């Protein structure tokens, strides 16, 4: 059981997993790289398999959708898929680990630090993962599972550590100068601040800054679909909205309806009802704090003139935007709130997109429309276009970057 500090003050670094003395950072950094090994080593795959099993045995995580998704992603067959993708990467030569990778984990998606670490671990790297000092209960549960994994697989896990410390540039500089690759999961401010902290001359950095996501549903195909298909779509959408209080960068905050206004209105109203039912099925008892947050946000939108209607329900609040151009709120609400807007065609969406848009999850778009969207939207910043229900599926291609490349080096052999 790792020791979880209440509120470590800055300047103090604590090893969360594996447990070790707080002064051991220098010793750890000095030889961490020597434990790097070949990519997809059987003992590393076995360690992740154990982690998957331990997560599924955890009383809370096994029932938590994000915990269950993570366990699913770490199981043997899924890792075999990842490896197959890795082996297909082009390049005349050998892929070797980057060396020591420094991950700065985000605070909004509790499971992400494990995905980031696991990809790097599979590449054969040694890793130091810095977590926020405000550990959520879910993060603490995940650390307990990681610790058990480290105990079962001490050899495979050597050179890997999960640490926490406050806003201390000296510690960050120490790790940054020791690492070969730095992976920073934003906010924009974190990314900017980390960028000002030097890396070793040969090291590289990949930053994931703040992003926003949206959904697009074509009204005509939606209205043509029968009850089971509509319910299924609502269920998939709830999978994109429910985890992490809808605050993952990939969870949509705005839902754009494509079609004639009349059709859009009918489809939106129908989907609003079904989505509430799907969220209720997924989340159970509604959350009071979330409800108050949605009320505050939606009435605020109305008072500003950005919302023409507000429909508050136990798990969701549907807001109709006055116009598509102000459907996206300056500050995302999350917690089950969707801003809705109507567009005549996909073409009207692209002028609304910006560099910080990440995922468009869709329903009812033709292949041609998706292609047009990829070209038009991609130029303005969108990174992913995926079916509704898969917005939160994490993979090695993220925010438009190929993480395999960031986590390994290619030794050219001719």
């Amino acid at each position, binding site marked *: 059981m790792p020791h979880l500090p209440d509120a470590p003050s800055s300047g103090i670094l604590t090893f969360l997993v594996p447990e070790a003395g707080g002064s051991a950072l220098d010793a750890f950094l000095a030889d961490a790289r020597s434990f790097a090994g070949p990519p997809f080593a059987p003992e590393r795959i076995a360690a992740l398999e154990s982690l998957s099993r331990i997560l599924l045995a955890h009383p809370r995580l096994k029932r938590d959708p994000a915990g269950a998704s993570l366990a699913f992603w770490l199981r043997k067959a899924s890792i075999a898929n990842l490896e197959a993708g890795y082996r297909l990467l082009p390049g005349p030569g050998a892929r070797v680990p980057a060396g020591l990778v420094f991950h700065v984990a985000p605070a*909004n998606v509790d499971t992400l630090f494990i995905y980031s670490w696991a990809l790097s671990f599979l590449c054969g790297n040694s890793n130091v993962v810095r977590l926020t000092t405000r550990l959520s209960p879910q993060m603490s549960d995940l650390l307990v599972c990681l610790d058990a994994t480290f105990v079962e697989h001490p050899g495979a896990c050597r050179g890997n550590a999960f640490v926490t410390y406050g806003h201390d540039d000296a510690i960050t500089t120490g790790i940054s100068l020791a690492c070969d690759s730095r992976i920073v999961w934003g906010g924009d*401010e974190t990314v900017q601040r980390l960028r000002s902290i030097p890396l070793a001359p040969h090291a590289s950095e990949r930053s994931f800054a*703040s992003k926003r996501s949206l959904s697009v549903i074509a009204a005509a195909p939606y209205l043509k679909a029968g009850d089971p298909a509509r319910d299924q779509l609502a269920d998939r959408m709830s999978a994109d909205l429910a985890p992490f209080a809808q*605050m993952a960068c990939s969870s949509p905050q705005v839902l754009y309806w494509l079609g004639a206004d009349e059709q859009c209105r009918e489809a939106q109203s129908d989907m609003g009802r079904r989505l509430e039912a799907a969220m209720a099925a997924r989340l159970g008892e509604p959350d*009071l*704090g*979330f409800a108050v947050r949605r009320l505050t946000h939606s009435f605020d939108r109305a008072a500003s003139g950005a919302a023409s209607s507000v429909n508050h*329900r136990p798990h969701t609040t549907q807001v109709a935007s006055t116009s598509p151009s102000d459907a996206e709120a300056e500050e995302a609400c*999350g917690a089950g709130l969707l801003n809705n807007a109507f567009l005549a065609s996909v073409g009207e969406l692209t002028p609304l997109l910006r560099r910080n848009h990440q995922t468009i999850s869709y329903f009812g778009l033709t292949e041609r429309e998706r292609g047009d969207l990829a070209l038009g939207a991609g130029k303005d910043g969108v990174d992913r276009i995926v079916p509704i229900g898969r917005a939160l599926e994490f993979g090695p291609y993220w925010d438009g970057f190929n993480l395999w490349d960031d986590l390994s080096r290619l030794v050219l052999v001719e």
Partner: protein
Amino acid sequence: MMPAATVDAEGLLAGPPFALRDADKHAVLLPALDALTRRHYALCEPYRRVVDAAFGGLQREPYASLVDLPFVPVSLFKRHELRSVPADDVFRVLTSSGTTGQAASRVYLDRETATLQAKALVRIMQHFIGKERYPMVILDHEDVVRDRASFSARGAGILGLMQFGRLPIYALRPDMSFDLEKVRAYLAAHAGKPVLFFGFTFIAWQHAIAALDASGLSLSPHGGVLIHSGGWKRMEASRVGAGEFRTRAQATLGVERVINFYGMVEQVGSVFFENALGDLHAPVFADVIVRDPFTLRPLGPGRRGLLQVVSMLPHSYPGHSLLTEDLGEWRGVDDDAAGMPGRFFRVHGRAPHSDIRGCSDTYAPPA
């Protein structure tokens, strides 16, 4: 039933504040709130937008029940300039910072509304302490009310209550320490007279009651009353219940009665004082509704939800019907045991704020 046209806030304010049974009160209150809803709809654009978006616009026919009236979340006063009078008519702006780091509410008062608030408070206070003005000790320090054009909720509360005392003094120094010599001298000078104490619940507790208790001291005025108000949030953290607060206030301050009231800067004047049951009681010019936070439907007695407070006092800003972030339940109406007719309720604290973190900054230092 009285015809709506003959009663207004003025008329109701002239009478006793706890005299009407619920049905009789609503015959007066409902038309007044209906008129306020239409007034603010016509004069305050952000309010009109909210009514249009969240309530489908104004109802054409008069509202048939208090629960049908539109309402706005109190948080709206933090983000929008909500007023129904020209800026020139604003003569005082009340502010409340709420929790540290959050935006402050801004409440725009014209002379009419400020007068109505003052009159309402006089009616309620006189009901509880009589018409005589007693020596008064404010359990706070004077710096809180320095700037008289723009008041914090704390300052507004103190100034509102101060008029009910004679030669009031502040018991605390600016560093919040209790000025025992000053208070003792004051009480000695007014020996034999009942004394009125007023303070915000947590400040009264922490810096007066508990501070005196810790030094083994007590004051001994001749009878008197402590009136206190303010959130119980910080009190809950110190695990002090209403009963313990009362007995220890009686022991240290030497007061006979301890009366809590519930009010907010967005509805100054129409405050809810404790009745004989220890519940908070609605005066004739205000009322309380409890709503399910998930469906917004009104709840019956004994069921917990978000408190909505209505008041016929706010004319210069659309604060006559507010959905608070406080949880509570209404417990009865026109019950003889309460000592007065009307509806009464309890507050169960603030709804928890969800700790939702956006694409959040884990490393950037707090701004």
